[in-house]
């Protein structure tokens, strides 16, 4: 059996406005080159599931970074930090883009990186993944999982643009995974999202699952749906390999 190992550690990167923020980075041991993956955490915060997800991508050969979008709300239990973020209106889209670009560029500077970077996000992170892929041109593919509020009715100073209106600027191939029992996004909103992608001739693939709602990958929550999650992960690996491998 071949030797297998990985390194997983917290790092500091320089985020939006020059603010230092924390990130969790994991990669296989060895010289590489490894494809890169940046993970945008969900609304419940920079939590254990995202730590495990970071290591899971590393297990599959990706140099992976999960950065803490809630850094500026303070340190502590992820649920407490997420609550503080909610109490203060969440993070702005501009700040999210700045922090995420910093994570992407950190990967691109590493000697063991293969020059390709994907972006993965679930829940609010799914929305942010799509938004980033429309605003920036620095990633090679985007993986949006049940991105709530891509079709955004209520605009706020921190989230002033409905992401779907930026579809024409999508800069890379997009994978979308959705549960047909989800209420944010609803199947009708996913239809609108897909129609806009088609209208602009974008490279995308959507997979929609019956019997699943929001967050069906979360094995520690009632929303977990094992069959749909296992199939969804296969879609993730196939898509990421197709767009990020240089072998």
């Amino acid at each position, binding site marked *: 059996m071949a030797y297998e190992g990985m390194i997983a550690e917290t790092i500091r990167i320089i985020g939006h406005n020059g603010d230092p923020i924390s990130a969790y980075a994991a990669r296989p041991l060895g010289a590489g080159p490894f494809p890169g993956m940046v993970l945008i955490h969900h609304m419940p915060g920079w939590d254990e599931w995202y730590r495990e997800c970071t290591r899971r991508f590393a297990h599959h050969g990706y140099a992976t970074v999960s950065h803490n979008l809630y850094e500026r709300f303070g340190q502590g239990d992820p649920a*407490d930090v997420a609550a*503080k973020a909610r109490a203060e209106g969440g993070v702005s889209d501009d700040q999210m883009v700045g922090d995420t670009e910093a994570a992407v560029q950190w990967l691109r500077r590493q000697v063991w990186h293969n020059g390709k970077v994907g972006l993965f996000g679930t829940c609010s992170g*799914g929305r942010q993944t799509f938004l980033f892929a429309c605003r920036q041109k620095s990633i090679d593919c985007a993986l949006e999982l049940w991105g709530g509020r891509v079709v955004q009715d209520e605009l706020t100073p921190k989230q002033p643009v409905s992401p779907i209106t930026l579809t024409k600027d999508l800069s890379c191939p997009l994978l979308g995974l959705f549960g047909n029992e989800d209420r944010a996004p609803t199947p009708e909103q996913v239809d609108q999202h897909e129609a806009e992608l088609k209208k602009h001739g974008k490279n995308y693939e959507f997979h929609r699952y019956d019997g699943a709602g929001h967050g069906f990958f979360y094995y520690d929550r*009632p929303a977990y749906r094992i069959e749909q999650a296992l199939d969804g992960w296969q879609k993730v690996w196939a898509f990421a390999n197709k767009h990020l491998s240089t072998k």
Partner: protein
Amino acid sequence: MCTSIVEISDCDGMGKGDGGEWFKLTHSVVSYDHPHHALLEEAITIDFVNRALEPGARVAVELTLDAAKVLSAALQRAIAQAEIEESHRHRPG
């Protein structure tokens, strides 16, 4: 579901948070969204916080929708009785 159902209000009082310390409250936050602990897809979450303090300064509950309705009704009843008491207290003469 990834909702935007959040109601943030000023709050005045004290709360007992992480570590058992009491702290002054500045805001209450009521939302209907993903709970962290309750085994529900969505819950009414109520946080009493002090924005000037660290994130651990939080009194939190995650309730089913039905439990939240029961709590809301109980609050309404208690407040109505309290207002009657207060009106007697402040009556001149």
